Structure formats: structure tokens, C-alpha cells
């Protein structure tokens, strides 16, 4: 389902629930006519969250209570075309659909367990009665396979939260059981034009296998935004001048220093709510620790294609061998023809560096291994992007009319780096 369709459904629901008018919000999927500064008298309603590659969970309003239904189940999941696994998630996806509600709402959430083992749901960062906190064995009995439990509580504060199991958590996290829980403020004093949500996660899917390995503790090989790896991750489309929020939640086993090109942002919120302005400062990289949510906000002033990625370089790669003999600087290509007599297509790589790897995999010089992705992927207007994992692009454009992907940025003349010499002894 496209981002536009999702936006339509959720926006309507959101506005109905918030009891706010739709004035000035613009058409579905269309860019708002203009951004008005928030005032105490006429606060704009919050825009719906855009969960990259995902969606928000629909609800029913029953006697003033928003009813949601989460179904924990095994699913087929695709990281990017060509790599599929059996994962566990909610309502057909991992992460599960984003739950969106508004501060002050009373929510009733049914949880049906279709997993082969028991589970619970913990509402991470939400202040609620102890019996609703979802720690199996501590706050409630675990939800056995086939059973449905109901959670009901009032949302007393706003911000970015999560939901995830607190039962056999090592396995259920490794299998993909998680989702975002966004609580919009009753009074939208910090309105943004674009509100993106990303769940950060890591996976141990050994090449050629079809199920995550929950026994892996540190050596994960796939790093995802909302279960997808670059280049399968949606881009974030923004009109120049818009205010943008990116909500990030980390359910992985590693911290992620998330770095944005082309803008300076402030960390404005955690999973405990809004940070006072006095405690915010400008930065370009925000560490998202394990088990935390971090919201950043910025003004998209500069048009262009701006990378947004984890700054741990191995986290912007897909699966690769970590125990292979280091080929860098090893002169061995002359032996290839002899070895190829025994291993057809044998081709040594990595003497000068590993950038050539994407050339080989893209051109399919060789049969590919089963159910795994090349470690470096992605084509840009100027060549290979040589990345995977936790990476996407914030596309800022002047005068956008829709949030359809505008394609790659065309730099105005004289504003792009260019070659001036091919002489290694060049002196300016």
C-alpha cells in the first residue's frame, strides 16, 4: 500500500479522534499549502505519522474508547527483493503496524496470540496501571497460543513509545516482534509538516537460511529501518522549508548513531516525552541507544538528496563474511585462471578495496548464494551507492505538490563536485 493511501486512512481517523477540524490540512497526500506558526489559540492538528515501508493500525471507536486489535503471528517477511524469511510480527508485518493515538485517549488493545509459544505485550515508556505493563509472570500470566488478552489504559502523556513482548524476549525480539506507539499531544504546540517513524533493528539471518537465529548476540548481519534494508527502504520526501520530525526507536542489540546530511537537528524527545528546549542543542548525529526512542526535528532548508544513516559503517552494509582472510593488498589475480579450471567463474576480489564487489554482484558475474543480499547495493545517478542496511535518503525539493518520489536531485550548474584532472601528480 502506498504512503498516500495510508495517509488518507490514518489522517481521517486521527482527525476524527482528535475532534479537530481539517482546515488547512490540504488534500490526502498533498503537501500542505503552508506552514503556520503554532499559536495558543489556533493549533494545527498533528499530521499523521509516516511509518517508512509500513502503516498505522486502524481502530474502532467504542463508547469513547479506541479499540485496537494486535495479532501476534508468524509471517513471511522480505528485507529487500530476493531475501525472505519466516519472521514473527503483528498483523502481517514486522515491525507491526504503528499504533497512533492522542494524549488523553483511552485505548483498549486486544492481543491475540497466534504464535507457537506464549507471549505478552509491554507498552514501552507508557505510564499505566501496573497490571497493564505486560511483563509475563510479573504483571500478568503469559498469553498462551490461541488466547486473546485485552489491555486497557488511558494515555496520560505524548511522545514516541514502543510495544514489544516481555516473554521469551530474546527469541521474540530476534524474530521481529515490535512496533511503534505514537501518542500525539492533545495540544500540538510543536507542529511539524512531516512526521516519519522508524524502528531500528538487527537480524541474524545466516546466508542461505530462512529464519532468524535468536542465539546470535552481537554478530548480526542485517540492519533495518522498519524491517527493510537499503535500497528497499522508502525515501523521506520533504518540501523545502517544511519542518520535519523523525522518530526513531531502537529494538536492536546495538546502539545506532543516526546521522543526517544537509540539516542540523535537535533531539526533542525520548520515550519519556518532550525534552525542554533548554536541554536541546544542534547536532547532526544522534545516538539512539538500545531500548530507547529518540525524536529529532529540523527545518529542511536545503534542497537535495540527503543521506540519512547509521554512522557505524558496518551497519550500512548487508550480510558479509566477518571471518574471511583479508584480501586487501593481496596480489592474486594471476592465479585466477588456474583456479577457475577447477572452480568455474572463480574471480578473486578485494585487492584494491571492496568497491568492485558491487560491480561484480550487480553484473551477476557468478551465481548468487541462496537467500542473501550482496553486501553493497544501490544505484545512484552517478554510480553505485555501495551500501546496504540502515540507510535511506531525505529528498528535499522546492515546490513539491505530492509526496511521490521526485527522482534524484539535479544539482544546479556549478554546485556539484567535478573532475579537474586524471593526473596522479596533479598540483593545483
Amino acid at each position, binding site marked *: 500500500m502506498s504512503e498516500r493511501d495510508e495517509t488518507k486512512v490514518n489522517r481521517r481517523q486521527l482527525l476524527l479522534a482528535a475532534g479537530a477540524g481539517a482546515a488547512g490540512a490540504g488534500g490526502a497526500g498533498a503537501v500542505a499549502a503552508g506552514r503556520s506558526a503554532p499559536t495558543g489559540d489556533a493549533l494545527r492538528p498533528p499530521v499523521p505519522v509516516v511509518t517508512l515501508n509500513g502503516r498505522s493500525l486502524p481502530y474502532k471507536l467504542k463508547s469513547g474508547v479506541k479499540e485496537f486489535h494486535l495479532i501476534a503471528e508468524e509471517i513471511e517477511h522480505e528485507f529487500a527483493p530476493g531475501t525472505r524469511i519466516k519472521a514473527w510480527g503483528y498483523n502481517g508485518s514486522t515491525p507491526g503496524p504503528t499504533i497512533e493515538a492522542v494524549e488523553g485517549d483511552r485505548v483498549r488493545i486486544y492481543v491475540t496470540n497466534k504464535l507457537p509459544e506464549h507471549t505478552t505485550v509491554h507498552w514501552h515508556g507508557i505510564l499505566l496501571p501496573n497490571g497493564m505493563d505486560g511483563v509475563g509472570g510479573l504483571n500478568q500470566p503469559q498469553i498462551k497460543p490461541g488466547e486473546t488478552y485485552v489491555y486497557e489504559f488511558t494515555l496520560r502523556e505524548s511522545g514516541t513509545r514502543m510495544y514489544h513482548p516481555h516473554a521469551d524476549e530474546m527469541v521474540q525480539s530476534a524474530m521481529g516482534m515490535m512496533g511503534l506507539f505514537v501518542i500525539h499531544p492533545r495540544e500540538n504546540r510543536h507542529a511539524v509538516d512531516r512526521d516519519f517513524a522508524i524502528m531500528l533493528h538487527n537480524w541474524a539471518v545466516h*546466508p542461505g537460511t530462512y529464519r532468524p537465529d535468536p542465539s546470535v548476540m552481537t554478530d548480526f548481519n542485517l540492519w533495518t529501518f522498519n524491517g527493510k534494508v537499503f535500497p528497499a527502504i522508502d525515501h523521506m520526501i520533504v518540501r523545502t522549508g517544511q519542518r520535519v520530525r523523525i522518530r526513531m526507536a531502537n529494538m536492536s542489540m546495538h546502539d545506532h548513531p543516526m546521522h543526517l546530511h544537509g540539516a542540523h537537528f535537535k533531539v526533542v524527545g525520548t520515550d519519556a516525552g518532550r525534552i525542554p528546549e533548554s536541554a536541546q542543542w544542534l547536532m547532526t548525529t544522534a545516538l539512539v541507544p538500545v531500548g530507547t526512542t529518540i525524536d529529532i526535528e529540523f527545518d529542511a532548508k536545503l534542497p537535495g538528496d540527503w543521506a540519512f544513516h547509521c554512522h557505524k559503517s558496518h551497519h550500512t552494509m548487508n550480510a*558479509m*563474511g566477518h571471518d574471511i*582472510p583479508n*584480501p586487501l593488498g*593481496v596480489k592474486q589475480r594471476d*592465479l585466477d585462471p588456474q583456479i577457475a579450471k*577447477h*572452480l568455474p567463474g572463480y574471480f578473486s576480489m578485494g585487492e584494491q578495496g571492496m568497491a568492485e564487489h558491487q560491480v561484480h554482484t550487480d553484473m551477476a558475474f557468478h551465481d548468487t548464494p541462496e537467500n542473501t543480499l550482496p*553486501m553493497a547495493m544501490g544505484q545512484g545517478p552517478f554510480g553505485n551507492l555501495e551500501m546496504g542496511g540502515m540507510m535511506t535518503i531525505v529528498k528535499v525539493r522546492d515546490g513539491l505538490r505530492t509526496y511521490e518520489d521526485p527522482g534524484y536531485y539535479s544539482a544546479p550548474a556549478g554546485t556539484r563536485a567535478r573532475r579537474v584532472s586524471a593526473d596522479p601528480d596533479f598540483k593545483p
Partner: protein
Amino acid sequence: MTVTVGGLDRRARLSAPVLVTLCSVLAGCAHLEPESFSQAAGAVAWRQDSAADKAAQRRVDELLTGELDADRAAQVALLASPDLQAHFEKLGVARAQYLEAAAAPNPLIDWQRRTLADGGGARVEWGLTQNLIGLLTLPMRRAAAETELAGARSEAARDVEHLALEARSALWTLQAAERIAELRRQHAELGRLAFEVAGRYRDAGNIKAFDFEAERTLHLEARDRFDAATLEALEARLSLSRLLGVLGRDTPLRIAGRLPALPADDPVTNVTEAAALERRLDLRAARQRAEASLQRVGIARGTRLVPALEVGAAREKEPNGERLSGPTAALELPLFDARTAQIAAGDAEARLALRELEAKLLDVRRDLRLATAALANARRRAQTWQTEVLPARLKIVDGNAREFFYMLRGPFDPMHAKQVAIEAEIESVAALRDYWLARAQLARASGDLALVRGEEPAKGATP
């Protein structure tokens, strides 16, 4: 008796049936004419003159111009093996013994002249006597000698059969040994290349000294195994050449490159114990030897009361001129020697032959059961290695190569995986060789040469 074979171009195909015909002829024909072998254009020749040598030589030359398969190897052996010729000469000795034993006793002429002491004349006597018992028992002795000769012929036929089987087995052994040596060469070359690659990594400072040494040892071990396989192939080649009787020729034997493929079924439906007891030539020879012993002891027993009876006619001329004539007879009285010792010896000889036959029967049963089990075992092994282990090993190579391409594995993994796959192919070749050797073993045990004849050459059965 002459056996001829159709056109030369069909000889390779026809040779095996001809061989069997000859075997039956050798075993069953009452009158063995040695020259018939030399005229045989087919598989086997008893060469008794230089013309026969030359004819056999020409045929061997023809056979050796093409690639040797099992049938051709058997043909060459039957023509060129000096061992077989030696066996045939034994048959010549047996035939002479037969002729001697089957001859009627010669009549005796005696003549006497005795002179009177006073010079009054001389008495002249002459007589003709014939050993009547010898004559009367001639058909029985002849029959015993024929049985004895038939035993010798069966032994000669058995030698032909065994040589043909040994030649086939030696060829299969050589085919396997040379294929294994070639696979060992590939295995060793991969070991050398992995060692060279390791050297490059070491030169670049990217692998540890002892990881490099590990590749060195793998390389040297692979080379050592290749050396051993080379010698085994040479040994197999020399053994085949020796067995075929063509060792010392300038041109090396050209061998069909691959073992015959594993056939879909084993032709073992007729391999029953009863059929084997009927068919096996060594058993037949032993039976015939035993029967001859019984026949001989029967003669001794039958003539026990009248061991010797000579009849004849005598004429006598007295000194006074009178002439006398009349029949003569001499009868041996078995008072002291009633042929007891001879009969006892004959009985013992016959019992010995029967006991040996009994022992031989045990051999046959053991051989048959073992060979049947060996064949089934070798088939299972050949199938396991060929259709299960080797394809799985090749998939492992493929998986390693694919993951190397994605930099999920280093270069040594696919090279080592390929070496392991080559090891599996070596096991596959060895198991297929053992299958064919088991077929020969079963053919020998059952006496059914159809088990090894005319197998189709391999068509890409082994990679």
C-alpha cells in the same frame, strides 16, 4: 574341429560368445584336436607353430590399435598370454596319457629253439598269446581315460575362463587407477594453488604464519597422495600388460578412459547354487577326476578274481619232425596277491577325489554367497557415492563458490570444498571399480561368464 568367427569388424562383439563355445567344446568334445585352436579366428588359440604365433600376433596387433575395453582385453589375453599356452601344453600331456591308457594290449609272440644234447636235432616252439583280460577291459579303461582327459579339458577351459575374467578385472583395475590418479592430480593441483594463494596472503601480511603453514601441509599431503596414486596406476598398467602377455611392446596400451557405468540391474537371476554347481568348470573337472578314479577302481575290482588271463596258440616241431599244435592259456591264481593293495589304493584315490570334490563344493557355496553379497554391497556403495555423496559434495562446492563471490567466505573454502568433492569422486570411482570386480568375482563363483560380457562403456556416468 575348427571354430571360425564372422567378419573381422565384428570380432570384438562376437569374441565373448565364441569364448564360451570354446569352453564348452574344450569340456565336452571327445576328440580334442589341438590344431583347431590355432585355426580359430576368434578368441583363443593354442599356438603350436610359428604360423599360429604370427596369426595370433596379427590379431593382437589389430585389437591393440583401438582402445581396450574389458572384452578386448580378454581377447588379447586369450591370444597372447604365455600362461594360457602353458596350460594348453599341459593338455597335450594329458592327451598323450589318454592315448597310452586307451590302447589295446599288444599280442605276444614267443619263439623257442632247444637242441638235444646229443646233437640229435632241435625242438622249435612258437606261440602267439594275447592278454585277454587287458583286451576285455579295454572299453572300461578307455572310458576311464576319456573321463580323465575330460577332466583335463575342463581344467583347461577353466583356465581360459579365469584368464578372461582376470584380464577384465585387470582392465577395470587399471581404468580406475588411472582415473583416480588423474583425480589425485587435480586434487594436488588445487592444493598447490591454495598454497600459492596463501603465500600471496602471507606476503601481503594478511594471514598468520601458521595458517600459511597449514596450507603448506595440505598441499604436501595432496602431492604425496598423488605420488602414491601414480605408482598404483603404473602397477595396474604393468599388471594388465603382463597378464595380457603384451609387456615389452613399444606402444603403451590404450585404455578406454572410463569404467563402464553402473547398470540399472544386476543380471543375477540365474545365479543359483544349483546352476553354479552345474556350470563351474573346476567343479566339473573335479567331478571328472573323481569319476575316473571310480572307473579305475571298478576295473581293478572286476578283475580281482581273474587278474590275468592269457590265451593263445602254440606250434611245436619236435626233433623227430613231428608237428604239434594247439591252444594255450595262462591264468593268474590270486593266491597271494588278490589285487588287494591295488584296489585299496584305487579306493583311496577315489575317496580322495570325492573328498576333494566335497571340499570344492564348500568353496563354491562360499564363493557364491560372498560374491553375491560383494556385488550387492559394491552396488550400494557405488550408488551412494555416485548418486548421493558426490552430488551433495558438488552442491557444497557450489554453495561455497557462491558465498565466496559474495565475500561471505574466503578463497580457501571453495578450494578445500572442491578437494573434498574430488575425494568423493575418487571414492565413487573406487566403488564402481569394486562393483565390476564383484561382477567378475560372481562370474567366477557361478561360472556364468555372461555376467561380465559386453558391458556398455560409460556415458558420462562419472563426472
